[in-house]
């Protein structure tokens, strides 16, 4: 069953919904990347919660006008309206008062959401007989989604994706260095407005699939996971899109075979799975890689200190140092250095003297700056430079 869903074998509608969810994840991932880079990820949570009163009001208005209250385009227009109001309230509170953005987000989020829940209760009492199904907007529901809805979602998600790709340079600059962006004529305030418009669009488009409570996860988790994989913002952007897209796809596919489960949580959990993988396994910034690097580095430090102690005839106090030296065959179990150990120790001591010597040579200032106590000087200097250096060192050694 799952493989059918993943391979899009569940019929035209389910396929469309799955592809729509993929497009949504993709655009949420790239839009979220810039929120994450600006450290403003939680703004999207305020936006999404602020959609609820708009949805409920739109429903009531459409019913009052004698139409079908469940029309998705109509509900989304309402969502955009109240989310825009919420966003404006957040910016006003954080820019024009002494309140911080976190306070502004918290108050706007809870007030709008509370008002939305009240309106939802009204909707339930008004829309008797007419199953409103607005609860689906809380946690997302792809069950019974119309073909037109899925197309609308996929198209708008694709559009926001295109806008972000087009604007990636000014957005990057505004996130990294707004002052420079301003002077260089990239207008960070315009970038900010475009970003907020895109985030609002993604949030509203994602309401039906992920739901307003969890859409924030689809904006935050992909960039955070992607950051583990790269040090370049363009790549973080694309990887975040990829992670978001895969989560949307897999989540919607699973939801197609388990229609009783709300779609949003499944998508978010798929997303978290990818995050956990990145967190653990990413080659540079991943936790495992960092732990391994740390262990290797500690080993290098202990070996270096132990060997220098041997070379200078000092005792080795730390048991870890002794264990490492024994394992490397540099000392015997009784603490006496082996011939290899003595050779290596005197080589290291010579390197220490070489490093000390090049500090006195202005011509080698750049090389001397690379000293960190561990780097092998033979990887820094050319053989010719080493010979010249040793020639300078040897008479001193005789005097010493």
């Amino acid at each position, binding site marked *: 069953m799952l493989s059918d869903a993943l391979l899009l074998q569940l019929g035209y509608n389910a396929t469309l919904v799955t592809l729509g969810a993929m497009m949504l994840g993709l655009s949420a991932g790239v839009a979220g990347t810039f929120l994450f*880079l600006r450290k403003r990820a939680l703004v999207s949570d305020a936006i999404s919660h602020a959609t609820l009163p708009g949805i409920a009001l739109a429903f009531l208005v459409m019913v009052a006008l004698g139409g079908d209250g469940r029309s998705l385009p109509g509900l989304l227009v309402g969502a955009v309206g109240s989310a825009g109001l919420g966003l404006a309230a957040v910016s006003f509170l954080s820019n024009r008062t002494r309140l911080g953005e976190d306070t502004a987000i918290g108050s706007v989020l809870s007030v709008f959401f509370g008002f939305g829940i009240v309106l939802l209760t009204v909707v339930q009492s008004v829309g008797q007989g007419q199953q409103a199904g607005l609860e689906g907007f809380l946690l997302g529901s792809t069950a019974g989604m119309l073909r037109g809805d899925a197309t609308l979602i996929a198209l708008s998600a694709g559009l926001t994706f295109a806008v972000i790709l087009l604007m990636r*340079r000014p957005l990057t600059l505004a996130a990294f260095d707004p002052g420079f962006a*301003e*002077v*260089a004529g990239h207008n960070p305030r315009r970038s900010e407005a475009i970003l907020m418009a895109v985030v609002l669009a993604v949030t509203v488009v994602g309401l039906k699939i992920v739901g307003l409570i969890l859409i924030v996860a689809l904006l935050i988790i992909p960039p955070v996971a992607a950051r583990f994989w790269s*040090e*370049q*913002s363009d790549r973080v952007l694309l990887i975040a899109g990829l992670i978001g897209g895969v989560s949307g796809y897999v989540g919607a596919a699973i939801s197609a075979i388990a229609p009783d489960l709300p779609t949003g949580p499944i998508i978010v959990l798929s997303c978290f799975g990818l995050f956990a993988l990145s967190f653990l396994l990413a080659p540079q910034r991943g936790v495992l890689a960092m732990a391994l690097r740390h262990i290797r580095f500690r080993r290098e430090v202990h070996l270096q200190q132990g060997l220098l102690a041997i070379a200078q005839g000092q005792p080795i106090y730390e048991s870890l140092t002794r264990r490492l030296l024994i394992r490397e065959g540099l000392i015997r179990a009784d603490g006496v250095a082996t011939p290899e150990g003595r050779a290596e120790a005197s080589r290291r001591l010579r390197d220490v003297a070489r490093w000390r010597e090049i500090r006195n040579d202005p011509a080698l200032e*750049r090389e001397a700056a690379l000293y960190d106590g561990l780097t092998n000087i033979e990887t820094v200097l050319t053989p010719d430079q080493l010979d010249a250096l040793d020639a300078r060192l040897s008479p001193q050694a005789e005097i010493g």
Partner: protein
Amino acid sequence: MVPEDRSGAATAAPLEVHGITVTYGEKPAVFSADMTVRAGELTAIVGPNGAGKSTLLKAVLGIVMPLAGQVQFFGLPLDKARDRIAYVPQRASVDWDFPTRVIDVVLMGMYRQLGLLGRVRQAHRDAALHCLTRVGMQDFAERQIGQLSGGQQQRVFLARALAQQADLYLLDEPFAGVDAATEKAIIGVLKELAEEGRTVVAVHHDLSTVPEYFDNVLLLATQVIAEGPVSTTFVPELLHKAYGGRLGAGQVIGALAETV
């Protein structure tokens, strides 16, 4: 204040400021400042802490909105002159854990030229590398910016400004918290820029290096105390006016010893 500057204004000084006032809340950080920057020379903005040096620079560049005042670059409003201006912000103003490499930061100086979708070609990369070479950072092109020391970060910022090919360079505390090698590299590049006929304005805090590094000085203490060539403006009487009691006599003498 300095008559010859006024006459030079007719040929459009690189930067001309009239009556600029910036306030935070209702306390003026800069009050009614005038400034005329001479072309092809190095000018320092000097003053005690909290004198509004960085604020003046930011207001001139439209990063903070002044309450009043007029600013012209080469006789034009800011929007018409952006291509001729390069700004080097304070190093502390950005997040150095941002996912970007040294070469990418320098390429940011070319974004205006590249446009939204223009591809970064080898020629751009070569130009960026050349800018890094000028500040002595060519070996660090592929490094993540978070791995750099403070002085190296400052040099990368300068390289990005060089990539903009501007005529006027405005720097906010370029020597703050950098090592001696960086200071030497930066002042070397700034002097080269002036020799090429470009204009340099820097917010500067180290009085002892003013006579050695700069041609002109603007003394600021919320208001402009004096503006003009170092030889006539960087004198104990005016410095005391700018710094009040905050400047020990020893500091002034130390700073002036180098002019003599």
